[in-house]
Each structure stands twice: as structure tokens, then as C-alpha cells.
């Protein structure tokens, strides 16, 4: 907590908390309009098929059905990325995954709409389908998209520095294949969209479209609706009500958002579509299954000499954010540690499954799991403390990484130090009883992308502020509150800058008719970018107020201090500084909002008589400014500086950010060797967020990230069989319940970024990526097996333990990691190499160049 600020850094309840805790706040599905109809979507039952014929006659004839929309009602492609316009709102000729959108029935009730879905006759010609990315890459016929040979959405091949030379200089090299299985956001609010057309008074025909939707990106939604419906953007208003969680799942245009508008146009009525939980799983856009072949070389002193990563992502049937995801996977190998040589080969592959997209920690999470696990392994091989090897590889900012990322504020060292200290790492690591262990890992993330996905010079955030005569401040921002605290952050920054109380500030957000363009809530960009825009807008209005107030106080505007609803002369300028507090009290009560204009008038009269004052209330200063300037408004915008926008190589646009957050975590786990069950007891998570604008929110975001990472580490996995999702429900897709969730101790590290608003950076995503490898490394510490595939389910843990045990019984070294802590090498003497000389090492396959042993299954 900082004494220099009155609102920034103070624990603050969210400005919209009461609406959430009383149930009065409205989410999209809570809204209804008179005469509103219900839309239901017919989904494909086949993973890959040509649509031969669709007949909607029988469905249309059902009593209560108003319209049935199909592909040819809006035969335009769209996609979140300009390079990825490969989706039709409703399939035109082909379906590409089980759950693809085929038709939409609009009816007077949900049950009638559901009945009618069964009456839509669709004839399919089933095509061979691809489910495994490595198989899919070999495809020559029946391609998922005709313009994508080998079902390859995109591949990138980056070489920075000289990786070959780096590996030749290394004293230790580790190489292994890691697999992270697919996970999804599972936000508590299922997607929902309400679309309504107004009749145009001039033409008498449907004119303006208003869409209420559970979206993280109202502006992109407006843009894509305009493309598909062929309406100018000014004819479309997108309003974002409360959103029940996003995590990336609402960061692009989801099919129902466009389908609802098409259906409303066809039915000539307002239409609401809300996904069932199962449909949410089909809509997906989560984190792809990722296969990572990783090789890392280190010197004996722990310094990393080179990294080579080959990454294959199972992207699903459409591009979505895929091109960005595969680039992030490579780009974010840099900017955490100082790595002089990097080779990256990334393949984003199409398969006949729901499209993957952006999910919390976009692109970086799975590669970070692999990297941090391997670094741990190398530390053990070198006989070095895993915390120490990370310290040895710190960047020395300000600097530009080998792949062109600019790093300024860098709190990683402090993060490592604090987690190590709080977790008792030095005293406890390696000394816990068998079956219990500690693991450490680090991660980082962007504070917004320096390059927008729509290439233009447009600022990424713009904010307007209006102040009324009674001192009420309204901030208009396009930034989307999705539960992360965007509105609260905006109000705090406005109030702090203007020196007024938080209760004066009202935030109007994410309504494209009212709020200036902001590209949305994703890649952790809101605090940094919309926060900076708010700061600038507030500073602009403050200038106007200061000019007027300075006149009244007979001083220069630069001599004024705005604080605690008071505008006062800087004490070194003022004369009556000592007597101020009492005076402030009485002034505030006289001009209180209740008394209103009459008293304020008489107060002004009184002030005139008394001559210039040393201070005015915020309200008085505002009145003075409005009397002087007329309307009191200000605008601020933010565009990332050119220096932060990265290198020039192909794909260099993804990865650069004006600032990076840093995280270091220690996890304490125990492993039941009988059942394979892993229990996480506690996670210490230090996060460098630049400055914690609101510690309650920062801690909440860090805990939430760690918890979500733990879900991916232990239980969450989308299970597929022939393109069918086997667990499309919250009981089967297991995110941890309260009983399974550990205590997370958040530790805030403030590195004060030179460009962040009040020094702030991101805090909502960066912590997630470290949790998975921290748990993996803790499992290794507990029972001596390295898990190379997430989630670490009891089956996978048991398989790894069994492999290790069998290898012992058969007197084989295969499956056993000779670097395992000594206490696991004590039995089965053949596995203990100590003192046995180099001839034993030669027999040990894991000492040869082949991928390291000890795989999971």
C-alpha cells in the first residue's frame, strides 16, 4: 500500500460488486424484450461431411416456429483474424466438427424450438476425418479447408542467434517430448446473445441492429457483424452487459453471436440464443492439445546456451486465433530468461474438432510447462538448486531479447526471492518425507499486445470523461468488464488522477453507441492500455479544472494539488496551509450535494467577499471550470510506442508488448503412490504486476490464475473419441472444487513499470503458466518421476511410477531417471551409479543423446 496515493493501491471493493452479490446485475441471458423469440441451433452430428441437402419445410410448419435460418441466409465468411476468415455463421456446404452450426430455428418457446430441430432434414455425405494433428499433417485428400494443403493452418520457423553453436557449447543437454492435453475456459456463464432490429423511420424497413452479448470484444463483434450482415458499422450497436467470465472464450466472435442477428433478421423479431453447457464445450476456442519437442542446453554454471522447440498444436477445424497462438508459443520462449540462441518451429494444424482459440495465458502455457520442467531436470543434472538455475538466467533490463522483445520493468528476481523465502524452500526442499515435495517454476505474460490484430494506426484504447456541475464524473470506456475488475480499475485511475472520491465516478463501459473504441479485454491489455487512456483523459479534464481553479485562487494551475475532493494550493505556495483541515471540513459540508445550488450560490458569494482562498472543494472547482469552459469533457487514448512493437521477421508482430508481468511459484504437493493421486497443499505465487492498483483484485487474479493452472495440471482435459467430446459437462470436465483447491498465497511484487498507468502491468494471466510446471517439479521432488503429459491424472502418475518400478525389477535402466533424487535411487542397486564408474553410464540410455527417459506412458 502506498502513502503517495489516496485510492491507488488501496484494497477496493469492485464498483459493480453489489449488483453481483444481490443478483440484481444483468447478464445477457437475464435480459428480455417484448415479443422476444428463442433461437436454437442445429449442430452437425458428423466430424467432417458435405451437406448435400437441407430441407426446413417440416420444421417451419410446426406450430410456434417463426423462422429457420440456414447457411445461405448469410453466405459470408468471417473469423477473428484478418488472415483467418474461414467460418460461415451457418455451414454452407460442409461441416467440419461435431457441433458445427447447420441451422437455427426461431420459435416462441425453447421447447418448440427444440422439437423443430428434429424436423430439419439434412442429408450429409460423410467424409474422412482427421483427429490427430500429426496424422492430419500428412493428409493429401479430403482436406478440411481446400486452401490449406496438408491441413496446415500455418507454420513458422524462427532462428535467433546460433542455436547449433549454443548446443555445442553446452555442458548439459536435455531433450524430451511433452504433451499438454486440451483444456477449455468453462466460464460459469454460458454464451448468450440477444439481437434486435429497429424499424428505420425513413425506409420503414429493418434498420439498426442492437446486439447484447456476452463478449470480451464488443468492437470486434460490431466489426464482424457488419461484414457478415453487410450493414455499415454505424447501423450496429453492441452492448456488453455483465459478463460471467471469459478467460478468452468470449474474446472472439462466437457463432451464436452472428447467428442470433441473422435469425432476428429472418424472423423479423428480437431473438435470444443462449448456449447450453454442452454447446459451450462445442463452441470451445480453448487451449489446444500441444506436442512440444524441446531441447535445452546449459553450461555447467547453469547459463542457458540454446533452446530448440518444435511445437505442434491441434487447432481444430477453424483458424480462430490459431496463427497468434502458434506465434505466442515461440515468441514467449524469450522475455522471461536471457536465452542467447533460440530455434522455433511451430505448426498449427487443422483437425475435425471444435476450433481452439485464445485461453488465459494464450500460447505460452503449454510451452512454459515443457520449458520449466526441462530446466528443473537440467538443474538436477548439474546438481544445482532449481531456484538458483533460474536466477542465473535472469535478463538484465532494460534490454531487447534475442527475438526482439523489449523488456523494461522486470521483477522476476524479487519474485523468485520472495517465493523461496515464504515457502521455506531452502530449509524444506529435499527434506520432506517421501511422497511429499516442493517444486518451483516461473512464467511471464504480455500486458496487451503491442500490435493489434487489425493492422492500423488506431489507438488501442480511447476513453472519454465527462464531469457534471455537481462534480459527478462519468468515464466512457470501451474496455470490457468480464469479472477481472476493468470498471473498478477505470474508476480508481480516474478518481486518483482527478483527486476526487471514488464514489463520484461512474463508469459507462462497452456500448459501441456511447463508448469510444477499445479493442477489448484480451491478452491482459486493459489495465495497461485502457488504464493509460483513462489516465490521459482524466489529466486532460484536470487541466481545465486547474485553469479555472487557479484563477479563483490567484495562483498558477501548476501550483494546485488535487486530493481527497479538494483542490488546494501547494503548501510551499500557499499561506494558510496550517489552518486548512478545519476549513476544509466546513467548506465540504456547506457545498454538500444535499444543499444544492442555493447554498452553493451563497458560498460563491461568501468566497467573493473573502477574496482568493487556499483551497476549493472539487465541486467548486468543477463549477468554476464549467462556468469558464462550458461542458467539461476530456479524451485520452493509448497506442503502444513504436519501440515496443518488436522485430521485422515474419510473425514478429506477435509477442511484443509494452510491458511484461513476471511470476515465480513454489508448489507443495503430495503423491499417493498407491492411487497415483496428486494433492496440492499450497502454492506460493509471487507476481510482478508493476504496481498493484487494487490489491484485492490483483490477489484475486493471481489466486484465480494459479487455481486454473492447477486444474489444467491435475484434472482438466477434453477427452475425444472419433471427434466426439466425451466429457461435455461440468461434472465430467473436472475443474477443482472447493475441497480440492489449495491455499494460494499471493505475493505482490511491484516493479513500477515506466510506461504503465501508475506503473501497473498485467496480473490476470501470467501466473497461470508457472503453476503447471511447479506442480510437475514438485511431483518429481516427491516421488522421483517426471511427468511429460498433462494433466497429471492418477492414471498417468501410476503409469510413470509403474514404469520406474518395473525398470527396477527387471534391472533395466529404461524408464528411470538417473538424476532422480538420491532417496529414490537407494533401492535396486543397479540404479545407483555412484562410484560405479563410466561403464555403467554408457549402458544408461538416458545418458545418451536420445530423449530423456522417465516418460509417463
Amino acid at each position, binding site marked *: 500500500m502506498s502513502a503517495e496515493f489516496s485510492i491507488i493501491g488501496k484494497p477496493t471493493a469492485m464498483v459493480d460488486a*453489489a449488483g*453481483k*452479490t*444481490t443478483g440484481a446485475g444483468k447478464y445477457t441471458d437475464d435480459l428480455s424484450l417484448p415479443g422476444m423469440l428463442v433461437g436454437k441451433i442445429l449442430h452437425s452430428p458428423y466430424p467432417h461431411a458435405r451437406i448435400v441437402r437441407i430441407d426446413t419445410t417440416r420444421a417451419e410448419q410446426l406450430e410456434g416456429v417463426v423462422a429457420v435460418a440456414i447457411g445461405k441466409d448469410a453466405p459470408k465468411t468471417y473469423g477473428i483474424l484478418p488472415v483467418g476468415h474461414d467460418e460461415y455463421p451457418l455451414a454452407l456446404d460442409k461441416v467440419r466438427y461435431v457441433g458445427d452450426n447447420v441451422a437455427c430455428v426461431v420459435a416462441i418457446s425453447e421447447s418448440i424450438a427444440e422439437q423443430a430441430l428434429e424436423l430439419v432434414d439434412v442429408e450429409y455425405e460423410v467424409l474422412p476425418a482427421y483427429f490427430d494433428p500429426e496424422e492430419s499433417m500428412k493428409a493429401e485428400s479430403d482436406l478440411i479447408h481446400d486452401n490449406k494443403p496438408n491441413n496446415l493452418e500455418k507454420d513458422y520457423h524462427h532462428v535467433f542467434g546460433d542455436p547449433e553453436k549454443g548446443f555445442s557449447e553446452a555442458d548439459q543437454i536435455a531433450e524430451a517430448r511433452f504433451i499438454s492435453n486440451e483444456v477449455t475456459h468453462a466460464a*460459469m456463464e454460458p454464451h448468450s446473445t440477444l439481437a434486435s432490429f429497429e424499424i428505420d423511420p425513413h425506409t420503414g424497413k429493418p434498420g439498426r441492429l442492437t446486439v447484447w452479448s456476452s463478449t470480451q470484444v464488443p468492437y470486434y463483434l460490431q466489426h464482424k457483424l457488419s461484414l457478415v450482415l453487410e450493414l455499415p458499422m454505424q447501423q450496429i450497436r453492441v452492448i456488453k452487459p455483465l459478463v460471467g467470465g471469459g478467460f478468452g472464450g468470449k474474446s472472439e466472435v462466437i457463432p451464436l453471436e452472428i447467428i442470433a442477428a441473422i435469425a432476428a433478421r429472418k424472423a423479423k423479431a428480437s431473438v435470444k440464443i443462449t448456449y447450453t*453447457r*454442452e454447446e459451450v464445450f462445442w463452441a470451445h476456442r480453448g487451449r489446444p492439445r500441444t506436442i512440444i519437442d524441446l531441447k535445452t542446453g546449459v553450461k555447467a554454471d547453469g547459463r542457458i546456451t540454446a533452446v530448440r522447440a518444435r511445437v505442434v498444436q491441434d487447432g481444430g477445424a477453424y483458424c480462430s486465433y490459431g496463427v497468434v497462438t502458434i506465434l505466442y508459443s515461440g515468441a514467449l520462449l524469450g522475455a522471461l530468461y536471457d536465452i542467447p540462441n533460440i530455434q522455433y518451429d511451430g505448426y498449427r494444424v487443422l483437425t475435425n474438432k471444435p476450433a481452439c482459440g485464445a485461453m488465459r495465458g494464450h500460447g505460452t502455457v503449454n510451452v512454459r510447462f515443457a520449458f520449466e520442467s526441462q530446466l528443473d531436470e537440467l538443474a538436477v543434472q548439474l546438481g544445482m538448486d532449481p531456484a538458483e538455475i533460474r536466477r542465473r538466467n535472469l535478463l538484465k533490463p532494460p534490454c531487447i531479447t534475442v527475438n526482439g522483445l523489449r523488456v523494461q520493468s522486470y521483477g522476476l528476481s524479487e519474485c523468485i526471492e520472495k517465493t523461496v523465502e515464504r515457502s521455506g524452500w531452502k530449509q524444506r526442499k529435499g527434506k520432506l518425507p517421501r511422497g511429499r515435495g516442493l517444486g518451483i517454476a516461473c512464467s511471464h505474460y504480455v500486458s496487451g499486445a503491442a500490435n493489434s490484430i487489425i493492422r492500423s494506426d488506431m489507438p488501442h484504447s480511447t476513453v472519454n470523461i465527462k464531469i457534471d456541475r455537481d462534480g459527478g464524473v462519468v468515464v466512457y470506456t470501451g474496455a470490457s468488464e468480464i469479472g477481472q475488475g476493468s470498471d473498478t480499475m477505470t474508476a480508481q485511475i480516474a478518481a486518483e488522477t482527478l483527486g476526487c472520491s471514488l464514489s463520484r465516478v461512474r463508469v459507462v463501459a462497452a456500448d459501441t453507441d456511447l463508448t469510444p473504441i477499445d479493442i477489448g479485454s484480451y491478452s491482459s491489455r486493459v489495465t495497461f492500455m485502457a488504464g493509460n487512456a483513462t489516465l490521459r483523459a482524466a489529466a486532460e479534464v484536470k487541466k481545465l479544472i486547474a485553469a479555472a481553479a487557479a484563477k479563483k485562487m490567484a495562483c498558477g494551475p501548476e501550483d494546485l494539488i488535487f486530493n481527497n475532493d479538494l483542490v488546494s494550493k501547494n503548501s510551499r505556495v500557499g499561506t494558510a496551509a496550517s489552518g486548512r483541515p478545519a476549513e476544509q471540513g466546513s467548506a465540504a459540508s456547506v457545498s454538500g450535494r444535499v444543499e444544492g445550488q442555493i447554498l452553493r450560490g451563497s458560498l460563491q458569494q461568501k468566497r467573493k467577499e473573502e477574496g482568493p482562498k487556499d483551497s476549493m472543494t472539487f465541486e467548486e472547482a468543477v463549477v468554476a471550470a464549467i462556468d469558464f469552459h462550458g461542458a467539461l469533457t476530456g479524451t485520452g487514448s493509448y497506442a503502444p510506442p513504436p519501440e515496443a512493437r518488436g522485430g521485422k521477421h515474419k510473425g514478429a508482430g506477435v509477442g511484443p508488448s509494452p510491458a511484461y508481468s513476471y511470476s515465480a511459484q513454489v508448489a507443495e504437493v503430495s503423491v499417493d503412490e498407491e492411487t497415483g493421486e496428486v494433492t496440492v497443499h499450497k502454492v506460493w505465487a509471487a507476481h510482478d504486476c508493476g504496481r498493484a492498483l487494487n490489491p484485492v483484485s490483483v490477489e484475486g487474479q493471481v489466486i484465480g490464475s494459479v487455481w486454473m493452472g492447477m486444474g489444467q495440471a491435475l484434472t482438466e482435459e477434453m477427452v475425444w473419441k472419433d471427434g466426439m467430446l466425451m466429457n461435455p459437462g461440468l461434472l465430467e470436465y473436472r475443474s477443482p472444487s*472447493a475441497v480440492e*483447491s489449495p491455499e494460494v498465497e499471493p505475493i505482490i511484487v511491484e516493479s513500477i513499470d515506466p510506461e504503465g498507468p501508475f506503473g501497473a502491468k498485467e496480473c490476470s494471466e501470467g501466473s497461470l503458466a508457472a503453476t503447471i510446471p511447479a506442480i510437475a517439479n514438485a511431483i518429481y521432488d516427491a516421488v522421483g518421476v517426471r511427468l511429460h503429459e498433462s494433466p497429471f491424472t492418477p492414471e498417468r502418475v501410476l503409469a510413470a511410477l509403474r514404469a520406474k518400478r518395473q525398470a527396477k525389477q527387471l534391472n533395466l535402466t529404461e524408464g528411470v531417471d538417473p538424476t532422480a533424487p538420491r532417496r529414490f535411487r537407494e533401492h535396486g542397486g543397479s540404479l545407483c551409479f555412484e562410484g560405479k564408474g563410466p561403464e555403467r553410464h554408457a549402458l544408461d540410455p538416458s545418458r545418451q543423446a536420445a530423449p530423456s527417459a522417465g516418460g509417463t506412458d
Partner: protein
Amino acid sequence: MKKELVDLKINGRGCELAIEPNALLLDVLRQQLQLTGSKRGCDDSSCGACTVLIDGVAMMSCTLLAASCEGQDITTIEGVTEHGSLAAIQKAYGDWGGAQCGYCTPGFIMTVKSLLAENPDPSEADIRNALSSNLCRCTGYNQMYSAIRAAIQAERQGMATGEK
């Protein structure tokens, strides 16, 4: 399906409604009565966002026939606010970060109310057990525990607000 008349007592008020016998309580609350505080997060009692109190017991209204609740006291999140002000638990959830996106919050508050009515001094394990009927995807639950402890404290002091 032909509608039938039922008398439901919701948040202390009686209301006569024409509903289909197979109508779920959650749909009746949300669609007919516009009591949209109870949320639908799943369709199979797995998330708890629709939790209401039936005669004081936390139940999931997404798998409860509305007609079966005749003669019982139904309390929804809209009935939790006290005299137009936030109840201690509601205030505490806001202050301590127990709610982020807020979609699961009404369900959690109903669950906590039911827990505290039964057990005014729950242990950490009691709280965890009770909360495990509901899912939250934002908070990792940690800050909810602080909120619940603060609410208990505030209730004990006979205050309507949980000062931090």
C-alpha cells in the same frame, strides 16, 4: 403440455402462477417472475449457480420441478437483501473479492446462508465441504473463505457491514 395453477411462496410473498407441470423452478423464477438472480450455468446440477433455499435448505432449482415446491418457502438471492441493504455476507463477498465475474455468486451466497443457518461457527473444512456443491471459475475460492469469515464476524458484532 397443459398449464396448471400453482401457489408458490417466494421470498415471503405468495404468487399464483400458471405453469406446465414439467416446468423447472429455475425457468419459472427467471422467465415468468423475472427473478434473474438465480443463474443457469449447466443443465445437470453440477455447478450450483441456480441454488435457492427451499424451507431453508440449499437446493438446485435447475433440476427441481416448480410444481413440487408448492407449500414450501422458496428463498432466492433477491430475498437475501435485508431492509434494502446488503446482508453481511453480500457486503463481505464484495469487500474481500469473493465475487469476480459474479455469475456464480448468488448460488454461493445461498449455499453459505444455508450453511450458516445450520452451523453458525463452521470450521474451514465445514466451509470447504459446503462450498464444494458450487463451482466458481474465477476465484479459486480462497477469497470466499475470507469473505465468509468476515461475514460471520460482522454478524457476531451485530453489524450490517463487514469493515476491513
